[in-house]
Every structure is written in C-alpha cells, then in structure tokens.
C-alpha cells in the first residue's frame, strides 16, 4: 500500500492543472523502432512524431525530425498503439457494477460509479492498455450504459473518452440467478421477481423495447386528452438503441444465447456486438452472415477453467482462428483479471492466429467496436498519441514494456 510507484506520483502530480501543462512535452520523436501502425503496414527503423498530445506524423528513417523536438532513440524496439480493451474489469467496485433494484436499468451509467484513481487502472496501464471499456455487470438483464475510459488522464473528467458507448444486455442464465420465484425467508426482498428462466430473460428484453416503442408513441402523438408521459431516462436510452444511435452489447456465452441475441437484434432492428461469446465457434456462419462483431474473453482464462465458460458454454482454443478465417471481426478483451492483455493475444498466436490479426484484436478492432477509432487503436496522423514502446516483439514472453505514452505524455517508464 505504501509502496508508491512512480506512476502514482505522476498521477498525483498531474492532478494539478498547472503541473499537467508543464509536464506535457511539446514535441517528442521516437526514432529507430519497428512501428506497427496497425492501420497500415509495419515500418522498420521508423520515425514517430508526437505533438500536442497527437500523432503528428510517422514514416521511415528519412522522415525529417522537426527542430526542438525531444528525440528518444528506440533502435531495436517495437512500437504499437496503446492497447484497447473492449471489456476490462477495472475501476468499478463489485457492489457498483449493477443497480439490482430492477432487472431493467438502461438509465444506469457506469461512469457514476467509476473510481478514477483505482489501482486497477494503473495496473492495466503498466500492461500497455491505454483505453478500456468499462461496463455494467451481468446481474441485470438490461444493465445500463458503459463508457470508454483512458487509463490515465489529468483529471477524472478527461478520463472519460466516450460516455454511453454501449448498452449492455445480458442473455442466458446469469441475470435470472439471483431472482426467486417462491416466497420464503424475507418476503419483502426485491429479488422475488421475474425473470427466473431464459424465457423470462428474453421476455424482459422484449417487454423493455415494447415499452420504449409505446413510450415514443405517447411522447410524439398527442393522445385524446391523455397527459404526455414524463421524460424517462431509461426509455430514452432504449430509443437510442432502437434508432441505432447506441450499440447494444449482447452478452451471450452459449450457442442458444448467441442465436437469441442475433434474433432479438433483427427483431428490433438494433445494432449489436456479441460479448463473451465463448461458443461462437458453433455458429460461425450465422455470425458471419449477420455481420456481427465478436468480443472474445481471455483465451487463457478459458483454458484455466478446463474449457468451460459461464453458462456452461464450451470454449475451443482455435475459435479466434476460425473467426479470422470467416472474416468475422473480433477483439480480445477482459484485462484486469488474469494475464495482461498482450499475453492473451500472444496465447491466441500460439494457437494459430496470425500476429497481425492478434494485434488488431487488442487495438484497432476494439476501437472500432467502441466507436473511438478516430481517436485510438491505430497510429496515424491526428490520432491520440497513445503509444507503447516494447523492448522487442510484443508477443514474445521475454519482451517487456519500455514506456507508455498517453496523449503524448510518458506515463510509464
């Protein structure tokens, strides 16, 4: 507890506005490394210019270095974009992952419960993760909206890269598990409620969207003398999903739940990504046909659990390779628990995934899924200067992180 690492000191220093300004180098040039921009082909012995918190330019050794720049020699190193985790287990206390007062809480916003100084954020930052999606938990059928956070920022407000990035809907057995059907014990408990089955879970989702459609009708069409319903924050969120302004994150592990998630998305016309879809290998063609993207949880964790994921789903270690073959975009997610994200991607490479796709699965693809690809996930002029300098090939277990830059500031050294 008292071992105050340098990162903490920097975080504390940056909490002062004035300190933050002076701390930001105007111009940094990383020279000589193999650069993986992810959006384009790797550059050997490249030059990466960071200015004003953004990537200014990148290119080969012939790219002129601007005058007055702080030049850091990175010969022999490898540079990638800061890693992006589309579903990290950080910054939120277990108590605050779900508002369990209701099964349907679309109005709940995970930013209301975030701890901007959480140790878990520092930990994943030191593992090279500069952007994370934090989500409501899996105890509710409709849990609310998640947010994209930077793992380092000068203030709590700047930490939020994108609020309301996704609406989480959970299928399968988990959201019904805490509920009770038969009264006994404390009869006033809020957990005597629907749903207690898969049927009930799906109906709860349908009912929520039916209610949202009815709410919209009442709010827009003047009824005969009927008063207009009050503005309802939860209903407004569901309408955003129905209008495809907000992506639904459908957490569906078992094959039956993945099928249901795609069915519901088609029925209501919302855009969805499949989350924690362990059994996706059984329905690759269906998923490819639906043009759905897949968020896959840590491959090593599945191995540790002997191939079983939540909801009894069976995990196959070649799933990512199959997805790649079927051209289904996927991201590897779930840091904060288990191994660092880069090691999970390395594990997938060991199972047969090509390194380029594995790197995209922890940078470019999650950034696209989260709607922040114009800011993070790739290295190109105008992108945020979120950069990881590795001592060698990032997928080599002997490689360590030399430094991490977030918005042009070196925050891990």
């Amino acid at each position, binding site marked *: 507890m008292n071992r105050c690492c340098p990162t903490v000191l920097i975080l*504390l220093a940056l909490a002062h506005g004035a300190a933050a300004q002076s701390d930001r180098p105007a111009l940094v040039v990383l020279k000589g490394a193999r650069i993986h921009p992810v959006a384009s082909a790797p550059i050997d012995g490249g030059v990466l210019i960071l200015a004003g918190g953004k990537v200014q330019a990148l290119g080969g050794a012939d790219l002129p270095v601007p005058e007055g720049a702080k030049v850091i020699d990175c010969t022999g190193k490898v540079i990638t974009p800061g890693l992006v985790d589309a579903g990290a287990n950080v910054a939120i206390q277990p*108590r605050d992952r*779900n508002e369990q007062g209701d099964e349907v*809480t679309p109005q*709940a916003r995970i930013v*209301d*419960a975030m*701890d901007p100084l959480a140790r878990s954020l520092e930990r994943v930052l030191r593992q090279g993760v500069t952007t994370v999606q934090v989500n409501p938990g899996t105890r509710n059928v409709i849990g609310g909206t998640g947010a994209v956070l930077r793992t380092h920022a000068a203030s709590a407000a700047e930490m939020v890269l994108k609020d309301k990035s996704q609406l989480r809907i959970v299928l399968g057995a988990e959201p019904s598990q805490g509920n009770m059907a038969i009264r006994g014990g404390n009869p*006033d408990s809020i957990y005597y409620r629907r749903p207690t089955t898969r049927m009930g879970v799906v109906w709860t989702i349908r009912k929520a969207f039916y209610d949202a459609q009815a709410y919209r009708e009442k709010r827009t069409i003047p009824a005969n003398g009927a008063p207009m319903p009050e503005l309802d924050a939860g209903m407004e969120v569901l309408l955003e999903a129905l209008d495809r302004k907000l992506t639904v994150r459908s957490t569906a592990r078992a094959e039956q739940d993945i099928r249901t998630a795609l069915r519901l998305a088609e029925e209501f016309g919302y855009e969805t990504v499949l989350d924690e879809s362990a059994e996706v290998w059984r329905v690759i063609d269906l998923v490819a046909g639906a043009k759905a993207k897949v968020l896959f949880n840590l491959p090593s964790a599945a191995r540790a659990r002997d191939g079983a994921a939540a909801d009894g789903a069976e995990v196959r270690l070649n799933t990512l390779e199959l997805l790649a073959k079927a051209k289904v975009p996927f991201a590897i997610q779930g840091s904060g628990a288990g191994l660092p994200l880069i090691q999970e991607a390395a594990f997938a490479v060991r199972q047969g995934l090509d390194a380029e796709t594995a790197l995209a699965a922890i940078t470019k693809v999650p950034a696209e899924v989260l709607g922040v690809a114009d800011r993070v996930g790739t290295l190109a002029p105008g992108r945020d200067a979120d950069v990881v300098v590795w001592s060698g090939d990032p997928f080599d277990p002997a490689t360590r992180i030399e430094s991490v830059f977030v918005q042009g500031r070196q925050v891990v050294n």
Partner: protein
Amino acid sequence: MIPTVLAAGLALCMPQDPGRAPEVDVLLVRAARIVLAPDQELKDEAILVRGGKVVAIGAAVPRDLPAGARRLDLAGKTVVAGFVDAHQHLGQGEDLVERADPATPELRAADAFDPFDPQLATLVRGGVTTIGFAPRSGNVIAGLATVLKTHDGAVLREDGYLKMALTGDALDVQRKPTSLLGAAELVRKAFTAARDPRAANDPAARALLEAATGARALVVHVEAQAEVHSALALCEELQLQPVLLGCAEAWRMVPRLGTLRATVLVPPLGAEMRAQELGFPAALERAGARVGFTAQRGQRRVADPGSLRRSAALAVRAGLSRKAALAALTTVPAEVLGMAERVGSLQSGRDADFLVFSGDPLDLGSRLESVYVAGRALPAQEASR
C-alpha cells in the same frame, strides 16, 4: 445527570431575587488569552457579556461597568468559543433513518430529538455547545438536520442542512438502490423533479431546491474514492455545492478537493491511524480545502466529545495549522450549520458560549475547566474534561 443540567439551566434563567428588580445581567471576562476567532486573539484583555451575548471585546469594553456586574478573572487561562459539531446522532441512531424509502428529503431530525437524551449532557460537559443533529446515512437522501444547543436542547434551526449519503449504509442489497449507479440516478431524478415549477408546494421538493440554491447546506457522506468522485461529479452536473462528510479513503483526491475549495467534515482521528489518514486534514488545508471535525464515529455509537480535541491535536502534529485546527472545531462547523453569525466565535453580538482551558486547547495536557453557555457557567462538577 440530565435533570441536574436542566434544573441548573432553569435556575439560571430565573431572576436572582424575585423580590427586587432584575439585575443587569452583565459579565466581564478577563483572561490571559481569549481566542475570539481562529485568527484573532486577545492577550490579557477582556470581553463583555450582556444578556447572554458578547457585547464588547478588548479595547471596546467600557471602563465603567453597571452596578451588579459580575467579573470573571481567568489569569493564566485560555478562553475559546464553545465547540460546534455539525454532524451528531446523539443516542437516536435507530430513529434517524426511514428505511422504507431511500429518498426522504422532507424528514427532519428534529422530530426524532429527545430532550432527555443523556448524550446532550456528555457533549456540553465536553465543550460541545452547538450541534447539527443529523439523519443517519442509511438513506441516499436522508433528510434535514436540526441545529441545537446542547445545554438545554433549544432548537436554533429546525430545518438545517440536507443530509445525503452514497456510502454502503445507503446502498442496501435488499432494497433500491443497491449501487452507486442507482443512487446517482435517484439523486439526479430527485433534483431534476424538484426544479420543476409544478413541484413548488411539495415539501420534499422544497427541501431539495433550497439545498440546490444554497438556502441550506448540502452534506454528503462519502468514504471510498468512487463515492467521493461520484458525489463531486454529480454535484457538478446538478450545480450543487456539497460539504463532504467522511472521506476515509480520499487522501489521494486532495488536490481535486483543494481546487474545488471543498469543506470536509472529518470523523475522529486516532493515534493508531496510518500516516496518510492523520495527514489528511493538513493536506486538505495545504491544497486550499477546509476542514471541520466531528465527534460522531459510525452510525450507532454515541460520540465522545473529547475526540474533537484529540483529532485537532493529531492533525496539528501531522501538519495542520493551529488556526485551521481551531476553525475545524468552531467556525467551520458553524458555517456548515448556517450559524456562523451566532456561534463558533466570540465576536460582538454572538452567543457568549465559551470554554475555559488551563492552557492551549490544542495541547492535550490542558484541561477543560469550565463551560459557559450564554454567559452562565455550568455547575462546576459538570465540566469534567
């Protein structure tokens, strides 16, 4: 004990001799050191008290006193204003939370006040002359605190600050809300509804609206970093100016609290605490925030008034200025209660509630020798700390 205090109080209120015209109730207090306010002291000077109020200080005290005026000569002693504790539950823990509903802004702690609560005597003997009697932290929007004098239970303001809580006690796993997500939504909804003109006559809405406009303070109980952040972000969004209570794990958020010029009510410090906890008040002061101490520890335990001086002394040892430490016992909590013009300092026109110490009140070797309320001493045996 309490009947004694009440009897003494009643006796003091009565004319000395019913047969004669009432004497002028004038008291001249002269002491080695009189702390009028945290940044203002008199050395070997006097203050004049009439009718329970301070009427003149230092050079402004007239030379000729009316006949019958009493003189109190406190050579070698230090006089300070009676301590103020802005957050007290007395012995009424169970009656101070209406758990059937997580939002009860209309409820008043005054309605759970027991004038025979033995804790009142404990507090006044310990030098705490004014308190904010507050609803407990079992509800997200808990209700209104009441401002009381401890020696006689007189209510100075029945509908004082609005108390809120985002701590584990308010987030019950068996009731809505169970999380910060639900609590934030509840608060957002409540304040938004309160600002609707159609709600103008609703007492609950009025309680919230007056907290939003600053007509009453807003005290929010938070402990963990996420709770502190949630409270600050929510208050910024809803344009509220909170006083924070607790903040046990907020030592890393000090720069932000300083930037906001926040006021933080700190529960009792103990010598066994970690350095960052003991240094928290000092760090707040350096960063530009303000500190008040409260003797209330936890929800159900009765408070030890002696803990106020202990907190102050430990905080001074960890770097808090003496001025800020005195303010944390007097003027800061008085301001939270909206009573700074009446208690917490010994300026002209304020209540003559003061404590006589054998030495510096921040030195734990000093003894609290007597407690004066409205210019009258509690019976000698009553002051015991």
